[in-house]
């Protein structure tokens, strides 16, 4: 079965938009786009952005919000290809937008007393008394629910230069509501706002999105109700549904999956709705395997099957191994002999501090010959603004970085010192001790440091299902198809193992759907007779309910 060929593959949306896509491209007002996997939503969004950037004046631009920094970078590259001028656009995550465009510049109008240096810690890293005062902060409190006293807590923190990361949604809405200057600014600068992954939206993002639409900025939300997988962090697909019901938003569908083989499309659709009409297929490219043993044996099995795949002209980096959680990912990564890279997001990457961003970029530069040093500094200072002396210094730094990282044993102390000097040079006002700590953390953990190396063609990708969102591969090994694990189950009340309760069936189903639809040519669902459980002991394993849901086995090879 390992032989693969793409039966139904016509050229994936090259230049010509499909009819469905054309409808959206010709619509110039508010829109909600319900986009299935592989339907070309990034193409559509980037074309809409390009159309605006071509005609707007240089002091204007668009707001393009993506779920992760990585996705944002990719969207930006797509939008600006062939050297299109971004003008005054914003590409980034919603948190970065809240902080940089609303809270910091305009919070200062409402609450005086602080300069430009803010630290953005997570509540768990703050000291005990601060944590106490923020005990009421949930995953995504809507502004209406926050009391005056609670707002005062946020206000006094702001005045001392501290903004708790979990409160940025609340603060952004508050500042937006109360600062006329903020609304004037957004309206003067931005012609449109695009938000992706709207099925995983929070209350505050939704509130802000609607209010921005009220400023006569064209608002476009893109999402897939079936890919809502972040309920655990307070997100919900109800906001996307709500938008489809509003009069000032026109709803569009992009429901043709151009990415996956038809058999995979069938399987993924059937999973969500057994009554779906199936596409006629010759051969199913999705199959399940039960491996005797635990993770180590699974890794061995994968090692055996990979050469058969690469023999069909598929590169290693077009193969992905998706797991439910980090534990399995690390176990497989440690035991897989084939060259591989575990995709993880370090705390350094998650930090919104400017210095943390500089350090992330420097690490990427250090390992990737294709990453230009200019890309490290351009976000912070314009190259032609620097005088000759500064330029010479930066060139010296660049060369020193390369030298340090070419040594067989990394001198961590020197690296931290050098990176700190560079950050001081680029953003002296944003000095941030915590970022230095995070940097040291990364440098001291090999697994974290590896994350900054570019994926070579030789490396098979290992990541969690959550991380795989938005990506695509020729072949996917979907692991962790175990009962109790996926869908996640817990014993009923009084430890009743006979009447278990699903923790969040729908979220897990969506997650499974995401995993399957990452595969273009072939997908292997892997289960095994044993597994390592959360107490790190090996136990017996049985198959996940997903493997037999509504008789779906008949769609597998």
């Amino acid at each position, binding site marked *: 079965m390992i032989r693969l060929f793409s039966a139904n593959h016509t050229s994936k949306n090259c230049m010509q938009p499909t009819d469905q896509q054309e409808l959206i491209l010709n619509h110039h007002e508010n829109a909600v786009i319900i986009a299935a996997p592989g339907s070309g939503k990034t193409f559509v969004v980037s074309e809409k952005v390009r159309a605006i950037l071509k005609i707007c004046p240089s*002091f204007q631009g668009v707001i393009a919000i993506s779920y992760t920094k990585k996705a944002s970078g990719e969207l930006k590259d797509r939008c600006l290809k062939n050297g299109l001028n971004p003008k*005054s656009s914003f590409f980034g995550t919603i948190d970065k937008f809240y902080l940089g465009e609303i809270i910091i510049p*305009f919070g*200062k109008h409402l609450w005086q007393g602080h300069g430009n240096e803010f630290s953005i810690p997570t509540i768990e890293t703050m000291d005990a008394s601060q944590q106490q005062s923020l005990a009421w902060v949930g995953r995504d409190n809507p502004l209406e629910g926050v009391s005056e006293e609670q707002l005062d807590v946020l206000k006094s923190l702001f005045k001392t230069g501290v903004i708790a990361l979990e409160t940025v949604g609340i603060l952004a809405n508050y500042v937006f509501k109360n600062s*006329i*200057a903020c609304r004037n*600014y957004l309206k003067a600068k931005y012609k449109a706002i695009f938000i992706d992954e709207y099925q995983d939206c929070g209350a505050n993002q939704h509130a802000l999105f609607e209010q921005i639409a009220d400023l006569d900025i064209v608002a476009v939300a893109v999402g897939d109700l079936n890919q809502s997988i972040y309920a655990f962090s307070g997100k919900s697909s109800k906001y996307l549904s709500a938008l489809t019901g509003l009069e000032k938003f026109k709803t569009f569908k992009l429901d043709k999956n151009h990415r996956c083989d038809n058999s995979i499309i069938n399987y993924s659709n059937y999973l969500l709705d057994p009554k779906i009409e199936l596409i006629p297929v010759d051969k199913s490219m999705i199959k399940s395997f039960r491996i005797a043993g635990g993770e180590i044996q699974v890794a061995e099995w994968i090692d055996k099957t990979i050469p058969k795949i690469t023999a069909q002209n598929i590169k290693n980096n077009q193969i992905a191994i998706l797991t439910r959680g980090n534990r399995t990912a690390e176990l497989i990564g440690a035991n897989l002999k084939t060259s591989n890279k575990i995709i993880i997001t370090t705390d350094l990457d998650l930090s919104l501090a400017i210095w943390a961003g500089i350090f992330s970029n420097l690490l990427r530069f250090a390992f990737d010959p294709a990453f230009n040093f200019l890309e490290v500094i351009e976000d912070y200072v314009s190259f032609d603004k620097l005088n000759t002396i500064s330029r010479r210094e930066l060139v010296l730094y660049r060369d020193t970085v390369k030298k340090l990282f070419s040594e067989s044993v990394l001198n961590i102390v020197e690296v931290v010192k050098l990176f700190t000097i560079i950050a001081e040079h680029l953003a002296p006002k944003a000095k941030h001790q915590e970022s230095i700590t995070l940097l040291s953390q990364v440098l001291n953990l090999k697994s974290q440091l590896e994350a900054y190396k570019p994926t070579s063609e030789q490396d098979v990708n290992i990541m969690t299902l959550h991380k795989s969102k938005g990506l695509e591969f020729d072949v996917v090994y979907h692991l962790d198809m175990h009962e109790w694990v996926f869908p996640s189950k817990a014993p009923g009340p009084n430890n009743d193992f006979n009447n278990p309760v699903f923790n969040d069936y729908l979220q897990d189903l969506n997650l499974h759907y995401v995993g399957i639809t990452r595969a273009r040519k072939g997908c292997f669902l892997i289960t095994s007779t044993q597994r390592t459980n959360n107490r790190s002991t090996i136990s017996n394993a049985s198959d996940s309910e997903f493997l037999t849901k509504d008789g779906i086995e008949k769609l597998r090879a």
Partner: protein
Amino acid sequence: MILSTVKVAGFRNFKNTTINFAEKSLVIGANDVGKTNLLWAIRLLLDKGLSEYEVEPKDSDFYAFDDTNEFTILLHFKEVKEDCVVAKMKGKISDTDELFLQYKGLRDAVTKSKTYKLYAGINTANLEEIEDRYYRRVLNLKYISSRRDFHNYINREKTNLFQSAKESREAAEVTKDDTLYGEISTNLKTVDEKIPKLSYIAKATDTINAELNKLSLHHQTQQIVFDANTSNVDSFINNVSIASKSKNKNLVVGGDGKLNQIFLSLWASRNKLTDDLEEVSIICIEEPEAHLHPHQQRKLAEYLGSTLAGQVIITTHSPQIACEYNPNSIIRLVPTDAGTLAASDGCSTIIDAAFQSFGYRLSIIPAEAFFADVVFLVEGPSEEMFYKTLAKQLDIDLDRLNISVLMVDGVGFETFIRILSSLGIKWVLRTDNDISKVPNMAEYNFVGVKRMMDFYHKHAVKDAACDAAIAQYKALHRGFPTNAPPQANIDGMAIITDALALQGSFISVKDLETDLVNSKISGNLQTHYGTTVPAEIIEAMQKRKAINMYEFLLNHKDCLKLLNGDPISDPLVFCKSYIEKLYATN
């Protein structure tokens, strides 16, 4: 958007000065009072043409009369609503559309090294330091100095002019041009080929080649020649220079006046605000009237007023510009012991209201008054002629002392006094000592003295002695039954008028003609009018005052020397000593 206020402290002439601007502002003041310095202060922050190096502070920038090592220039903008500025200045514009920019020049007291810092914010309590003048792309000032280098400017603008003309061609014109271009190219090639054929060009290199030949056989195959450079057709065409055509003959482009006009009209049309507002600019022109005939000055003023949209600041020495440009603000810079100040802080409702009352009556002649240091106001044309002639005869050089003599005929004293006060210009007046009936009452009053007391009360700088005199005696200005007042009232008025004279308000004994008949020149008057009866002379003088005065002065002006020391001359003497005192302290 409007730049509404500029505050300069510790910079050049300015110790601590506030200047308010309006949409169209005129800056006037004596030479060296600091007009250009004020503009430079604004340019430090807003002029795109100034490089980072040029805005570094110099020792001469720090106010010399105090031991100061810091100076600040604060710009306050209001109604900042334009998208391009709002989009660019994130967080620096307030809810009420206000923006502040500040330049701070600093000098280390010990090392004397100098540096500067820039700030921007929503109010003076919230100024945040900014790295550079990044806003100049969308918010700036465009400046033309009084030393306009016309030819350089034209050369720089040539390319732009050609470019815009090229772009606005019709398709047929483009084709025609392309064909012509081809012909020019071919012709140039022909010319290039001919030039080396000139025998003296060809022969010029014979000597060189002969010597080279001696050095080596190689050179036989390669000859050195003078050759015309295969011309770059484009640079040849671009080499056209500006010329003036009259009846199809080329002339040298006019004198400075014409050049000035061409320069300004070209500049104004290039800087007209375009429809898609990508930037907001304040236009600043120094002395637009340079080298121009009065009529042309007026025309230029009108032209600039209609072509230049947006905020404009003009400095001038021209009364034509002052009254034709119709500024809603005049900023008069005045030198004082505390540095240069702006009268009434620049544009203000005081000045605006004062101008409103002028209305249609503002013309050149009164406009000259804005440039004086003292203005002597008289009733009508005969008084004006008289006093100007008298001044000459008494060796009081009005122009040298910057004194204007102005008649208020048809406008009234009050209007002039109001404007002059608002512009910080000292006013001196002389009026007739009229006595008339109080309307609707059976009594008469000293209406002339009353008028002067009102002016003093409303507009003059108060003096304790004068206040006392008026308080004590003013009741006596009325309350008598006929137009022959009792002695007590006359004496009371004399005390008041003496006090007012010390402040610059003068009154005749009776009226000009009567006073002259009773003065040392009575003999000359008798001669001129052919009678010795005073009443007849007075009557004759008052019939067609101006022309009679003119004729008398024409024939008898020398006799006015006799009035040296006469109270009639007091106003002029007062003006002279006021000026001398003013410039002695400064």
